[in-house]
């Protein structure tokens, strides 16, 4: 539980941070809230020689509305996501999900950007961002580019971030008013990563579902956007039959590891149970 030796850098601009990351190469890692990276360093599963702390950079913090998006700076803490009235009003599922991350102490430090950039399938934000069809703004020495959350995750701890790039902001398209939402997470205790979790966003017209998007947490090497499961719900009355087929479709794309949370078959089934419960809650919240 003692990390290896590292040098600490604290740039004040995005450009200098990017320049440092490029100069230092593979041995450098950005540091945000540190609540994923530092535990890895303490167990020596990661031993970066340089930490480039993003805390001192202006402009990476804050939540605002811009065009049709809510734009959230990468260094915005999970605690701030919970407190934001703008998010509560426009995308309340972000608050609901944030409240299920770890515990208050960790959320005071942990950031949205770190949670999304980390690439750990146990993180809750990535599947949510896929469910919301968010876009990540990645800034490197050639300026910013956007990558959809649904395209960002390549494998465990493998993402579309190129060498020297920093995730600077997350853009969430503002969902339709009256949408139904829910994040259901099964965990063993406070502070635990999900055994399985499901994010659901739906819109209803009368009693017919007109759109459905589903994200699944910690049941594969990457977060999962359950595209087919969502498609199976559109045009239905969210009756038992269509829910059952969506659940089956979602379960079919999972490929969880067996770990102390339970064997793979259990975690797959729990993804289904969480999805079912999330759908029920989302439907009860949707306004036609």
């Amino acid at each position: 539980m003692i990390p290896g030796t590292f040098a600490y850098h604290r740039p004040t601009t995005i450009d200098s941070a990017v320049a440092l990351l490029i100069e230092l190469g593979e041995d450098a890692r950005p540091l945000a809230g540190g609540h994923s990276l530092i535990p890895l360093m303490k167990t020596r599963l990661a031993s970066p020689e340089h930490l480039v702390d993003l805390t001192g950079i202006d402009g990476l913090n804050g939540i605002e509305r811009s065009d049709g998006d809510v734009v959230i700076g990468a260094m915005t803490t999970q605690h701030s996501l919970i407190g934001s009235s703008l998010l509560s009003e426009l995308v309340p599922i972000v608050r609901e999900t944030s409240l299920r991350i770890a515990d208050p102490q960790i959320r005071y430090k942990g950031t949205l950007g770190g949670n999304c950039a980390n690439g750990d399938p146990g993180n809750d934000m990535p599947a949510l961002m896929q469910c919301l069809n968010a876009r990540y703004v990645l800034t490197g020495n050639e300026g910013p580019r956007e990558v959809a959350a649904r395209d960002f995750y390549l494998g465990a701890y493998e993402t579309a971030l190129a060498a020297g790039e920093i995730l600077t902001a997350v853009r969430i398209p503002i969902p339709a008013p009256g949408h139904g939402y829910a994040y259901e997470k099964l965990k063993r205790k406070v502070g635990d990563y999900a055994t399985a979790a499901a994010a659901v966003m739906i819109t209803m017209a009368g009693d017919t579902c007109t759109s459905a998007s589903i994200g699944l947490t910690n049941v594969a090497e990457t977060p999962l956007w359950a595209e087919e499961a969502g498609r199976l719900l559109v045009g239905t009355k969210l009756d038992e039959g269509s829910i059952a087929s969506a659940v089956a479709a979602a379960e079919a794309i999972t490929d969880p590891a067996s770990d102390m949370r339970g064997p793979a078959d259990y975690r797959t089934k729990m993804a289904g149970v969480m999805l079912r419960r999330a759908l029920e809650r989302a439907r009860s919240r949707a306004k036609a």
Partner: protein
Amino acid sequence: MNEQVKIDLDRAERAEKLQGMGCKRKRVEDIRFTQGKGSYVDDLKLPGMVFGDFVRSPHAHARIVSIDTSRAKALPGVIAVLTAADLKPLGLHYMPTLAGDVQAVLAEEKVLFQNQEVAFVIAEDRYIASDATELVDVEYEALPCIVDPFRSMLPDAPILREDIKDKMTGAHGPRKHPNHIFEWQIGDKQATDDVFAKADVTIKEMLVDHRTHPSPLETCQSVASFDKVKGELTLWGTFQAPHVIRTVVSLISGLPEHKIHVIAPDIGGGFGNKVGAYAGYVCSVVGSIVLGVPVKWVEDRMENLSTTSFARDYHMTTELAATKEGKIVGMRVHVLADHGAFDACADPSKWPAGFMNICTGSYDIPVAHLVVDGVYTNKASGGVAYRCSFRVTEAVFAIERAIEVLAQKLGMDSAELRMKNFIRAEQFPYQSALGWEYDSGNYHVAMQKAMDTIGYRQLRAEQAEKREAFKRGETRELMGIGISFFTEIVGAGPAKNCDILGVAMFDSAEIRIHPTGSVIARMGTKSQGQGHETTYAQIIATELGIPADDIMIEEGNTDTAPYGLGTYGSRSTPVAGAATAVAARKIKAKAQMIAAHMLEVHEGDLEWDIDRFRVKGLPEKFKTMKEIAWSAYNAPPPNMEPGLEAVNYYEPPNMTYPFGAYFCIMDIDVDTGVAKTRRFYALDDCGTRINPMIIEGQVHGGLTEAFACAMGQEIRYDEMGNVMGASFMDFFLPTAVETPKWETDFTVTPSPHHPIGAKGVGESPHVGGVPCFSNAVNDAYAFLGAGNIQMPHDAWRLWKVGERLGLHA
């Protein structure tokens, strides 16, 4: 105001001022603990102090081909790297265990469990030490390993302990196999077998109390400082039994005992984890002797969970025989005990399976027979008593689960079955079939009170309705009612059957009254959070009439505290608490003589009144203890030696036998396997209650640990012997959010042989709690024909039960 009322009020006021026994006195130690002002081993900073860290084995079983320390030694800041080769000439590469085995300090030819200590790096700071551990190159040749204790004694099993492979007699008799440690038997085999052959009804169930860990908040640690000029060693450490550590260090190092100063400062929880001696202690001592500077060793969380002393791992084939009316007529138990790579159980030396023979429980069972086989496996050693007296949680788990199995077979309510078989109040002192003499109990009264308070009949009715609703598909929840009625055996113990490496298990108190009437008292025990500084003072307050706030309690420094065997097995109150009362009474006897001299009356003319001696019939003529103290030093009676102090070494005539009735109401979501405890009621009878608030706190803590053990806490190994989940990410330590709300209650049946009638309570809730939770889970699924469901009852395992029963669509 009437004169009598005035006298009564005055007496009440004086009694209250003492904050003596029965008072909910606030814990005095909490003032420093809650302000971060405690002083723990890791707070210690000494000039020139250096740091040690271990190189550990990645393999569960492997031959060490070579160890190359040159790269590590070349790292700037590294001072030394110790291996078995360095310790061997000193005879310190192995150390004796409390169980009569030896344990490797640093692995010599083989490693026997994952994370076993292979080399000890000493460096100028902790970071360098940790870096250097990665630079020690160890070449291993992996060997087949044994993880399942049922494979240990197979004919073709790999031999684990080559160091003792030809020694076919161990510390506890003959060994049947090189991987066998001992067979321990007690009871009447023939009579028991006869009863079983003729019984109307018998049950047999394999009950597993799985491997877990006590996991105190503070890990194990030590600082050793050897003064080469004086030839003296000072050793600070996380020691539940500091005097025993001093004796052991003296025996293995050859240093005379008076030149060893063992100090246990504040300890952040022990729960049995800090009874034993560990490689880290030895290496810090050797390091300091060799280098002449203080050496600190601090275990990290993963090391703590995976190396220093697991608990349980008892596989108990438990049988009961009964009449068809439900009278239990016999019990037969075989235990396969997985001790890991070394037998380092912390039991009194004559008891290789602890007090497992308390397994007849609270019931009048005429005959019983118990056999325990201990075996080696490629896992960490330990087998400590995790918040219980030696193997008592295991024993109570066996009987309290078995009685449920029997009730089911008989088609009888299990509360009724218990009532039918309880030892009756008039049978105490009660001689159990497996050799104990239970001191006192009133089980029927306690059980009835518990049942009435929780509304047992109504709960069973509600459960019956719920079960019907479940069958009709109207709910996905199962309701379970768990019961446990436990009898513990604590306060080890009488010298005739209890010793540790030959040291009898007495304990001690030394009380010194200062001239102004305040007190310092020192004990041979050592609090790890139990609140000794508060409660011992309350005993003295009541015995001597001195306010508890004027009494300082000190423990842990072996130079100043009288010799004692330490704190574990709920022995502090039964043994050192008794010593405290006896020492106080010696002082009181002397005080009475002094008071008689002061008041110019005969001793027999005096009577004790709360905080003073007064002349019988003349209540206005008195001397307070404070006044007596002054005289004791400055104007003692002629021919009396001045001063007012006493010491007592107390050898208990018997153990004490706390008991209690616990009920748990649980609701289980069959679709996720998540169990929610709706209600938990704990009635404890620990005899005389010294501080009801501390008792309640102890019960809360013990129940929380019981909840953890039953519902998910485990140390698991994969088939390669890799230890799984040895961090707080996976190891289930419930937070306030998961922890159920506890309801506490009590009855009072004093111990007849204890000077103040107290029995001990710190471990009861754990012992009684584990089977109670497990019974609730088993009860929830029982009507579906689930059979025995093994612990731990975490969500995925319960979901698997539902899967097996076809409960998921």
